[in-house]
């Protein structure tokens, strides 16, 4: 399924391109999809075993979308995501151990253990964060594109920003305000709606006056396109085409990748609002086994190679869990690190219950205030 909102000689279909597809590359996509699949399954397990706290949202069912999108991104591009971002970090190149360590809240985690599952960040990888406020990443991602445009014009090799958001996030004001700004300022950004059919329990139809979400660029003259999010090659190609316009024209673009969330909204959600039939139907659409058998059919991968990739994924994730489990937690003494980048006087560094002023030595306070006070 592929529709174009603004017919502009859409991209070649996945089928067409698949022809000229390097088998090694295809196997690599499968390898990445399988890594996400296993990582997320183990993450769910670790959450139920209380190794992971807070909220934990998984990419299960979105593997083809994740891998396809990341395949289209240059290392020099910037990526902003929602809180459902483990897979993106992994495929973007983060060490699985450091990703798992972040989920475990360890100092070696991608964000030093301070962000957790929803807030993966890596400067080197230009992964500029997972964001827990729905739609929260859309404006900052737009601002990153502003910085790119501020520093240089369009061109085939120029940097671009990719901003991921969920179907539910298209209903929040930030979506409207950000896309409008990108349009009037001509910013190099590709907004990708990862449509997995649901908010938490709310369907796209119940939440959006225009449920064909790729059409929602209409209010800003931003071309929109929908692609099958279960087809890794279709996703990659649609993203490549969109990014090309983004780079060469500084024309913001909108892409919708449609897939299905295989589990609950987060690990703790039993998804009772979804019927067993529906759940069963979704399993049949599972992109990971589908791509596996597809490659075996086309002869790009044999059963043995597939089995090896599966085993390798298990091993990598097992190592990641070990690494995270052995990694030390952050030192409470470091509590106040990173609150400010530029140190200033009287910044509060007091622990709960500490006196505002060191007792019996008011005279000594002035110099020491920054160090001991609980000051604002």
């Amino acid at each position, binding site marked *: 399924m592929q529709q174009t909102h603004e017919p502009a000689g859409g991209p070649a279909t996945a089928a067409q391109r698949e022809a000229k597809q390097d088998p090694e590359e295809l196997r690599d996509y499968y390898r990445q999809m399988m890594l996400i699949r296993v990582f997320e399954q183990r993450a769910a397990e670790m959450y139920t075993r209380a190794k992971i*706290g*807070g*909220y934990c949202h998984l990419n299960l069912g979105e593997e083809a979308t994740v891998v396809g999108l990341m395949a289209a991104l240059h290392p020099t591009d910037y990526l902003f995501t929602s809180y459902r971002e483990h897979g993106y970090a992994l495929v973007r190149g983060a060490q699985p151990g450091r990703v798992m360590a972040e989920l475990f*809240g*360890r*100092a070696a985690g991608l964000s030093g*253990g*301070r*962000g*957790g599952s*929803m*807030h993966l960040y890596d400067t080197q990888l230009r992964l500029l964060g997972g*964001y*827990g*406020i*729905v*739609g*929260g990443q859309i404006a900052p991602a737009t601002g990153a594109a502003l910085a790119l445009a501020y520093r240089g014009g369009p061109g085939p090799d120029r940097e671009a920003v990719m901003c991921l958001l969920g179907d*539910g*996030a298209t*209903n*929040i*004001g930030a979506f409207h305000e950000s896309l409008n700004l990108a349009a009037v300022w001509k910013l190099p950004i590709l907004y990708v709606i990862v449509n997995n059919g649901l*908010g*938490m*329990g*709310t369907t796209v139809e*119940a*939440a*959006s006056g225009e449920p064909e979400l790729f059409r929602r660029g209409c209010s800003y003259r931003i071309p929109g396109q929908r692609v099958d999010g279960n087809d890794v090659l279709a996703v990659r190609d649609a993203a490549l085409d969109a990014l090309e316009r983004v780079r060469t024209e500084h024309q913001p673009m909108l892409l919708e990748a449609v897939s299905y969330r295989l589990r609950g909204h987060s690990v703790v959600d039993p998804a009772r*609002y979804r019927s067993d039939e529906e759940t069963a139907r979704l399993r049949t659409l599972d992109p990971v086994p589908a791509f596996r058998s597809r490659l075996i059919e086309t002869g790009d991968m044999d059963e043995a190679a597939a089995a090896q990739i599966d085993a390798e994924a298990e091993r990598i994730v097992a190592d990641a869990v070990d690494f995270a489990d052995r990694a030390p*937690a*952050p*030192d*409470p003494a*470091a*509590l*106040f690190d990173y*609150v400010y980048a530029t140190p200033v006087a009287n910044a*509060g*560094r*007091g*622990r*709960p*219950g500490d*006196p505002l002023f060191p007792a019996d030595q008011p005279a000594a306070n002035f110099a020491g205030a920054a160090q001991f006070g*609980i*000051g*604002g």
Partner: protein
Amino acid sequence: MAMLSYRQALHDTLRAEMQRDEDVLLIGEEIGVFEGSYKITAGLLAEFGPRRVRDTPICEGGFVGTAIGAAMLGLRPVVELMTINFSLLAIDQIVNHAAKLRSMFGGQVSVPLVIRTPGGGGQQLAATHSQNLEVWYAHVPGLKVLAPATAADAKGMLTAAIRDDDPVILLENLALYNTKGEVPDGEHTVPIGTATVMKPGRDITLVSYSRAAVVAFDVAHRLEAQGISVEVIDLRSLRPLDRETVCASVRKTTRAVVFEDDWLSYGIGAEVAASIQEGAFDHLDAPVRRVAAAEVPLPYAKPLELAALPDATALIRVIRETLDATGFSYQEASSHA
């Protein structure tokens, strides 16, 4: 009286008020089909249908503003904001409209709106999902801001809020939903604007609210055994603030400590301490100390989160420091007991 969880008390109250008044409707994200992020509204969609239990798209500003308009026409919407952290997206509608329309339009309209929302950290939800921003709302004339600590007050204050003709923010707390307590059967309302003495005492006044008040109450009982008689005051109503109940207690005990979950600087405790030093100046034997959260965006990692949040240990230390600073004699105290 029945032993109910704070969650159950809220749920039962919503149900009772919806049965009582056809104009009461629920608006919020995932409150219907999903039955609520914290299940307060479980079963209500099935009972009252989609007309009165309205799932919304994700658009806090939009649906809170919509609830305001519905209230202007006489409906009594009870909005659930999934957590207080997301209320920032609706705060323009809450503060620039709900709180002001009546005054600004010369008393021609009222906004009978209730916004229920939980705050609180300690769940490893990280910086953006763990805040206690109630002081922002408590600062705003035109709003009423309630923060029940017990299941009984949850019922009494939510009932009062729904029947009140002004916009009311009912602050809930993630850590309280599963706590249980005796809840009066039938009609039960708590007068908005009044604090309550949770536990009477002689030696020191401990002022708190919401989750922290539960900890304060527990600490007070532990110290009782050690010969320290602590009077615990649960503010309950942050706006209006019942200063007199607080100061009357301090005039008696001559000492006070505030225990709060929000950040120390410019937090709820600042107003409490400022009010006490004005209302009980001549009686106060030691400075009013505040035990509050460290001033950091709350980190996800458990050891850091624990280091940042106020707890019983810090509270007990500060109570003792305050008593020691005034030469309090533990013997003498226990002899009272």
